[in-house]
């Protein structure tokens, strides 16, 4: 399924770029993300908890950056599964930044996600709502961090 969204951040594009490529900051912004650990220059290991009702799925993911064009776009591929292999997830992701003004940046994200296993029980419509909600949460947290000077400038 295709997931996409956009939000605006009141900060210059370079600063937004540094944030979205800062793993520590991403842990704090991605809903349910418990850990991100660099594996090498182009890939990360991440642990993300997805909760839908009584189902709590903890995914061990590997994110591999496939294309990085500074200040403009990052493409990545995510693959992973729950420890018990009860659900599998894979995604092709693209994040692009557009300068709307000296202090205003648009972040666009899109992802072609495939989930199989127990989380798929909830069906596409429900997952879509869920992901939209996570997107809003991410944007809120991201704006908070970028505004609070949490980032070392």
């Amino acid at each position, binding site marked *: 399924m295709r997931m996409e969204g956009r939000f605006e951040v009141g900060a210059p594009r370079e600063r937004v770029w540094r944030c979205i490529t800062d793993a520590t900051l991403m842990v704090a912004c991605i809903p349910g993300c418990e850990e991100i650990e660099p594996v090498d220059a182009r890939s990360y290991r991440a642990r993300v908890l997805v909760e*839908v*009702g009584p189902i709590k799925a903890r995914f061990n993911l590997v994110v591999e950056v496939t294309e990085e064009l500074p200040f403009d776009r990052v493409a990545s591929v995510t693959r992973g599964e729950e420890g018990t292999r009860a659900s599998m997830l894979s995604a092709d992701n693209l994040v692009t930044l557009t300068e709307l003004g000296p202090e205003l940046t648009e972040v666009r994200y899109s992802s072609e996600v495939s989930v199989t296993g127990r989380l798929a029980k909830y069906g596409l419509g429900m997952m879509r709502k869920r992901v939209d909600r996570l997107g809003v949460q991410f944007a809120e947290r991201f704006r908070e961090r970028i505004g609070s000077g949490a980032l070392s400038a």
Partner: protein
Amino acid sequence: MSALARLHRPATVEEAVRLLAGGDGERTRLLAGGATLVAMLNAGLVDPAELVSLAAVDELRGIGTLPDGGLRIGAMTRHRETAADVRLAGTLAVLREAAARIANPVVRNMGTIGGSISFADPAADYPPALVAADAAVEIAGPQGRRRVPAREFFVDWYATALGPNEMVTAILLAPRAPGLGSYDKLYRVAGDYAIVSVALSVAWRDGACARAGLAVGGCGPRPLHLDEADELLRAGRLGAQAARRAGELLAAAADPLDDVRASAAYRRRVIPRMVERALAAARDELSRTA
């Protein structure tokens, strides 16, 4: 999939809360009637390490009358009992009708009101009925007991106002008033979850509507309810015009899904018709009995 390590059987609510708080939060689950949880266990969708069965907690069983004449439905009360209780009449009949429409006799014999609302499937039958009746939910947790209006209990898809280590202990209902309650659902096959459901509770005295509560199920993350629609119905004495307007308002506020049962667009179209039908039936009933 790991094996279930322990099954606890506490005798009191306090003990159940202690077990819940003492366990590994993510892998300790309460077991009520099991109508949903056991099915999910069997399907391999959840793998709790510890289950806390509420079957031996006396306080949670049955329906009692409160000093003010209201009712207290214990969390472990089976749907079958709720569907058969004659005290759920007048404004409270909405709850009895909803209980009678849940799934099938096997599920109604096992499933409980506390379990059902804690799972909070937005297409389930109790949530809109409790919202229409303006019920309250009693919750126990490590800090003691608290009450939350049903209208605030359901917060999102499969998410409730329950905090960590909290559990539902009862549903509290204000004394029933003369009037009526009704629950109608549109479904694919008997026993299925609702495509759209409409719950109505009306207090009616001397030819005037004292209070109207209307809620729609299956059309968003939580039961759909608008104070404005209730007020329209009350002021318009449940008239056809008020019903049409209330249905339109609710349809506009709905946030339904496309799923195996129906498309979101279809649900939006059906809401006003279901609302008008419920109100027409209510007017009919009141004209016969009032």
